[in-house]
């Protein structure tokens, strides 16, 4: 063992609180909880982290990775290159070792000799006989397998200087109520820690140091926050069909409802969750409930969005509120079901046949997932139309550091324009689709409100202001024009864009959703090169007028997005009438989160081209 270290030792990377640790595992081997324990320990040491799961569409036996970026500066995007790999998967070990940067480290299970071709002379090996340790220490086969993961976390605590008490505290939290599991887990951590301390110079020069950057912050994934936000937003009906990566939205809604939505007196439920037979039924149920005055949602991903198109058109045209969470994954078709993308912008913005347009919200952090989930129900009720919250797998299924979730107890739900029996009494003739206020939003009634007034026939076929069927083209066009006006009004209820403090620069960046994770780093890095950029984060569609103003005010904007076809750029062209020459695309669509390095490289190359062609000389 020591021989090997000696033979391959090079000057190790010397970094404190600024590196990437990657775990390469076989899925179904119990590594997920050990790896997240590592991430959470670093979080509890006050150091910003961003963990990323890169997992297969499979239950057992295929490669899975867990990448943790540690960044004292708080850069929460992905970074290219790996500083320390925990190489636990023989299927991928060659590639995994190759991914380590020179001077980096390879922790591996030395119970089996490492093949010669896997030896690099520019990295450091950290061999730990994980299998042998577990065979000796544990009796049950399952424990022997599972505790290998805990032992390497224990070893990492010695290598990287993780506060051991933080780790044991985490074990206590994780197994609260299952006390029998606490001691063996702590024992496994100790085994790893001792082995590393006894056989290597610990800590390495790559190490952690307690910090205070996470004060008050939380570490949570977007889907948990979305499910919880739906509880706070007053959703009572959830209908869904299981689909990765959206499943945990409803799982979490269910979990928090069981805790927070049980009637104290009777023990009965103030919610209903229906696992439907498919996505068509899921959104049909949500629309039926929304029509009948309950706050309802469904959660899905690309394939489900495709199936829901017809119903989205119905909800748009018959003006029924419904909330849809789209946790985007890689398409087209089945695509890469467990990878992330922003590939559904166009198909959601104009979902369904005919002229349609839908309100989209683009959360970038778990906190925004919570806030937008809650407010989506207000917006849907207010505009009487579908609201699609466009999260993605990266945000939905990975834990991220963010500000704590908060709720203003003084806030009241906005149920929009709904007439009750008394209000109906005062009206001479009720018209479901009459634009009485001139904002394009008519007044609705719930079924059963009044014995003789307020009933109407909801339909996806052409109708007049009184909801009666019509094939009169003029009347149809009037309704369509009112819907255009309504979607203009809708902009006032949607989250406004977020701008950088800097203004007046020649170039700007436009982006949305998870792309945001890389932007601070891009701005800081480019500033060091003397390049200043203004930024605009889009948070909703249809676009706020300030989006057009921002683009108009710049010589050129880089539109950064995670899909092949520059869908955001297309939307900007269609909706804001922006010329192609004003925009340059920076795209990433390999299924993993876009990196600051990729964006910076693209900008620098583009600027050089501009300069060469003389366009940038001013």
């Amino acid at each position, binding site marked *: 063992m020591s021989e090997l270290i000696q033979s391959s030792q090079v000057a190790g990377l010397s970094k404190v609180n600024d590196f990437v640790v990657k775990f390469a595992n076989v899925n179904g081997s119990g590594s997920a909880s050990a790896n997240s324990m590592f991430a959470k320990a670093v979080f*509890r040491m006050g150091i910003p982290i961003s963990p990323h799961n890169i997992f297969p569409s499979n239950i057992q036996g295929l490669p899975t990775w867990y990448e943790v970026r540690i960044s004292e500066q708080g850069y929460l995007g992905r970074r290219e290159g790996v500083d320390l790999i925990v190489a636990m998967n023989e299927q991928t070990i060659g590639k995994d070792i190759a991914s380590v940067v020179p001077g980096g480290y390879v922790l591996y299970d030395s119970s089996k000799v490492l093949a010669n071709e896997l030896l690099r002379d520019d990295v450091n090996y950290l061999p730990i006989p994980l299998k042998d340790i577990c065979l000796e220490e544990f009796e049950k086969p399952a424990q022997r397998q599972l505790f290998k993961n805990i032992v390497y976390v224990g070893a990492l605590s010695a290598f990287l200087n993780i506060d051991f008490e933080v780790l044991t505290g985490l074990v206590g939290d994780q197994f609260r109520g299952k006390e029998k599991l606490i001691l063996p887990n702590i024992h496994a951590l100790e085994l790893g820690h001792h082995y590393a301390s006894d056989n290597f110079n610990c800590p390495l020069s790559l190490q952690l140091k307690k910090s205070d950057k996470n004060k008050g*912050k*939380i*570490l*949570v994934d977007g889907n948990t926050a979305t499910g*919880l936000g739906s*509880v*706070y937003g*007053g959703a*009572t*009906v959830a*209908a869904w069909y299981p689909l990765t990566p959206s499943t945990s939205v409803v799982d979490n809604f269910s979990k*928090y409802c069981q805790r927070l*939505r049980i*009637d104290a007196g*009777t*023990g*009965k439920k*103030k919610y*209903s*969750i229906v696992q439907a*037979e*498919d996505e*068509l*039924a899921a959104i*049909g*149920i949500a*629309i*039926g*409930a929304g*029509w*009948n*005055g*309950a706050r*309802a949602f469904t959660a899905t991903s690309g394939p489900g969005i495709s199936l829901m198109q*017809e*119903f989205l058109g*119905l909800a748009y045209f018959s003006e029924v509120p419904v909330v849809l969470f789209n946790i985007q994954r890689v398409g087209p078709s089945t695509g890469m079901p467990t990878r992330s993308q922003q590939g559904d912008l166009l198909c959601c913005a104009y979902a369904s046949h005919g002229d349609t347009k839908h309100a989209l919200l683009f959360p970038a952090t778990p906190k925004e997932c919570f806030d937008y989930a809650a407010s989506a129900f207000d917006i849907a009720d207010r505009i009487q139309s579908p609201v699609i919250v466009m999260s993605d797998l990266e945000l939905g299924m990975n834990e991220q550091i963010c500000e*704590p*979730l*908060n*709720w*203003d*107890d003084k806030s*009241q*739900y906005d149920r929009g324009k709904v007439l009750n029996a008394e209000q109906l009494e005062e009206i001479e003739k009720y018209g479901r689709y009459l634009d009485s206020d001139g904002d394009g939003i008519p007044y609705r*009634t*719930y*079924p*059963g*409100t009044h*014995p*003789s007034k307020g*009933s109407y*026939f*909801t*339909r*996806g076929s052409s109708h007049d202001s009184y909801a*009666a*069927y019509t094939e009169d083209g003029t009347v149809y066009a009037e309704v369509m024009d009112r819907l255009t006006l309504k979607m203009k009004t809708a902009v006032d209820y949607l989250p406004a864009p977020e701008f950088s403090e800097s203004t007046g620069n020649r170039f700007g960046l436009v982006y949305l959703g998870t792309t945001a994770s890389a932007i601070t780093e891009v701005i800081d890095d480019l500033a060091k090169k003397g390049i200043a950029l203004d930024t605009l984060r889009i948070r909703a569609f249809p676009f706020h007028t300030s989006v057009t103003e921002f683009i108009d005010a710049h010589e050129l904007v880089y539109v950064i997005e995670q899909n092949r076809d520059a869908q955001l750029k297309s939307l900007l062209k269609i909706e804001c009438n922006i010329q192609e020459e004003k925009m340059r695309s920076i795209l990433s669509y390999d299924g993993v989160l876009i990196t600051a390095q990729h964006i910076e490289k693209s900008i620098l190359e583009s600027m050089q081209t501009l300069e060469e062609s003389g366009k940038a000389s001013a």
Partner: protein
Amino acid sequence: MSYINKPKFKHPQMQANDIGLTRREYEGTLTTLCGGCGHDSISAAIIQAAADMSLEPHRVAKISGIGCSSKIPSYFLSKAHGFNSVHGRMPSVATGANIANKELYYIGISGDGDSASIGLGQFCHIVRRRINMLYIVANNGTYGLTKGQLSATADLGSKTKSGEESQFDNIDMATLAIELGASFVARSFSGDKKQLIPLIQAGLTHKGFAFIDVISPCVTFNNTDFSTHGYKNTWENHVALSGVDFVPMREEITTSYAPGKEKEITLHDGSVVHLHKTGNNYDPTDKENALHHINEHKKQGKIATGLLYINQSTSDLHELQETVDKPLNSLSNQELCPGSEALNDINNTFR
């Protein structure tokens, strides 16, 4: 006929029901279906059934899919909200509506194309979900609105007006509903109001999923002598497994039957369904027996009608899910929002 307005004339002799409403108040807009369409008889039967039961029209929600059948909700109970949704997807919309407010009556109207083809999946699953509603399929064996293609309920060998012959076995919606766990399953004929009206009343009153397959001939495209869904065949071959009377809860039971000639079924609200035996000793509470009778009749080219199956001991979705007594759509801000203190506790679990 949609170019004329429906007359509002009310005959002075028209009798008001127990809640002071005349039959007129249960009507809808003027039909746009073909003259003689069986579907109009279904509307009329629903109007009569609701008026006789003294149902408050606005406490009903009418939901349909797409097709000739799905136009029916326009033609009855105009004081009730209606929702003409998406082809084959009425069951999901009805499910959502019912979940939102369990206090209304729900009438789903669909057709054989809507429920047996494009919406067969949704039909199966709403039966399984035990939604408390009345689901009527206006079954004519053909696609009327697209001019006469065969539907999946058309019997093997049945011919449409254009001469197209069904080469496939039909889907029997009633046996399917029984097999999937529907707790009230009936079959009737739009031409037999005497049978259809009490079945609608019993279906509306039944707590749970009530299904009525109504043979409702398409006069324009599927009413030939060779069509098993035409008037001729249905008149000649529909056999009532038992006669049905419905006595609403509030009415005193005055009718008397010879002993041994009838069976009484008391519904959950105290209403009573009387079944008159027709000599075959039919027991609609026996699932296997019901399926056996339907299939035996079919083998002989007969259509078994009447109340085919009833099971009053099942729970509906709300009971299964243990939802609160108040309708979900009426819960207030305070009843729904857990507040900031609870959220602060949850934040701590993320640290």
